[in-house]
C-alpha cells in the first residue's frame, strides 16, 4: 500500500487520526496531517481507505 497526503489541501479536521491513528497524526503547531507511515501493512487497508473517504478535503490518496 502507498499513501500520499496533500498538506496544501488539508483542513486539519483530524478525521484520519480517528480512523487510523497508527498511520495518521496531526502536527502540533498547525494541526495539519502528519503521515506516520506511508506504507502500512495490507491489513490496515480498510481503515486507511475509510480515512481517505471521510477526509473533508480529499487530501489523502491511497493506492494498493
Amino acid at each position: 500500500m502507498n499513501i500520499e497526503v496533500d498538506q496544501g489541501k488539508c483542513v486539519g479536521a483530524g478525521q484520519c487520526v480517528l480512523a487510523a491513528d497508527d498511520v495518521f497524526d496531526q502536527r502540533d503547531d498547525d494541526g495539519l496531517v502528519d503521515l506516520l507511515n506511508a506504507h502500512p501493512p495490507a491489513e490496515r487497508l480498510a481503515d486507511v481507505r475509510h480515512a481517505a473517504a471521510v477526509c473533508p478535503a480529499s487530501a489523502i490518496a491511497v493506492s494498493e
Partner: protein
Amino acid sequence: MSIDAERLKLPLARPNVLDLAPLYEVLRREAPIAPVTTPAGDPAWLVTRFEEVRLLLGDKRFGRSHPEPDKASRISTSAVQDGPTGEYATEEADHTRMRRLLTPAFSAKRMRMLGDNMEELVDACIDQLIAEHERTGVVDLHHGLAFPLPVAMICRLLGVPQEDNEKFASLSERMAGTEIGEDAHKAREEFFGYMVGLVESKRGALGEDVISDLVRAQAEDPSFDYVQMVRLCVGLLFAGHETTVNRIGLGVLFLLTERSRWDALVADPDGRVDAVVEEVMRLGAPGDLGLLRYAREDVDLAGVTIHAGDALVLSINAANRDVSVYTDAEEFNPDRPERTHLGFGHGAHFCIGASLARTELRVVFAALAKRLPEMRLAKELDQLQVRATLTGGVAELPVTWRSA
C-alpha cells in the same frame, strides 16, 4: 406530486423532532436543486441530494460572503447563518488564517486526551441524576447531563468562566431564535458586548486557552480585525455547546423511542458506541434549514443555472437520508455498511469541533448505557417541548427508570 407549480416556502413542516418532511424525498428525486422562498421571504436554492450538497460544500465557487451584503437573500430572522458573513475579497485568506490558529487546539489527539476528564464529569452528572431520581422518580436529562457536559468542556477549552453559563446559554438561545424577530439580533449584540468584556478582562493575564490564543494572535497581526476576533469567540462559544447539547438530546430520543436500539447499545456499550454516535450524527436533524452559501460565479448544476450572488441552503438533513447513498436511509441502523455522512459538514468549513463532539457523544452514550440500562422516556415524543431555534432540538428530556 408536483413541486414546480409554485415556489416552495421554507421551512418544510416536519411530523416530529426526529423525522423530516416527506417532501424531501420528492425533492431529491425530482428537483435536487429547487427554487424556494426562505423564512425571511427571500429567494434561494434548496439543495437536497447528497452528491450536490457534498460537492457544493467542497467547491470554492461557493462561499459564506457576498459582494453586496445588503442585496443578498436573507435566510431567517435568527441571528445565526441568517445572511452573508465575512469580507468578500478576503474570505478565503481570512478563513485559512482562522483555521490555522484554531485547529491545533481542537485536534483529534487533544480531544481524546480530554476523554478521561469527560468521563468523570459525566459520572458526576449521572450520580446527581440518580440521587434526584430517588426522590422524584423522573429526571430531566437535558438539564442534568446534555447541557452541563458540553458547556463545561467548551468553557475549559475557550477559557470562559463556567458560572457565566446561564448568561451565554440564554444569549445563544435568543440569538438562534427563529420566532422572536429583531430580538435575535439584539441578543447577538449583547453577546458581542459580553465577549468584549471577557476578552478585555483576560488581556492582562492571558492563559492556556483558545480565547487567550486569539487575543495574542490579534494583537500581533495588524490585518486581524478586532471585531472579527470577538465575533469568532462568540461563534465558538455558541457552536461549542448549542450543537452538542441538541445532538445528545436527539440521540437519546432515537435510542429510547425504539427499545431494540437502546437494548443493543446496553448489551455492548464499548463495542457499539462509536457506530451509534455516527448514526446519531447522520440521522439527527437539528433545525429545519441547512448550511448557507452564496455563489461567487454562475454555475450550471443538476439542471439549473445558479447565478453569482444567489443564496443556497444546503440541507444536510436531507442529504444524510439520500436513498441513492444509504440503504433504508430513514432507518436508524448503526450496523449499516455506509460509514460516511455530512453531519459535520465537508470541505474547508468542516466542523472544527468534530473531534470534541465525537468524544463527548461517545462518553455520554456509553455511560448512559452502562449506568442507566433501564432508562426510558417519561413523556411521549410528541409531547416534548421543541426549541424554536435555528439549531432545533428539545428543551426537555424527561426520563425514568422506575419499575413500571
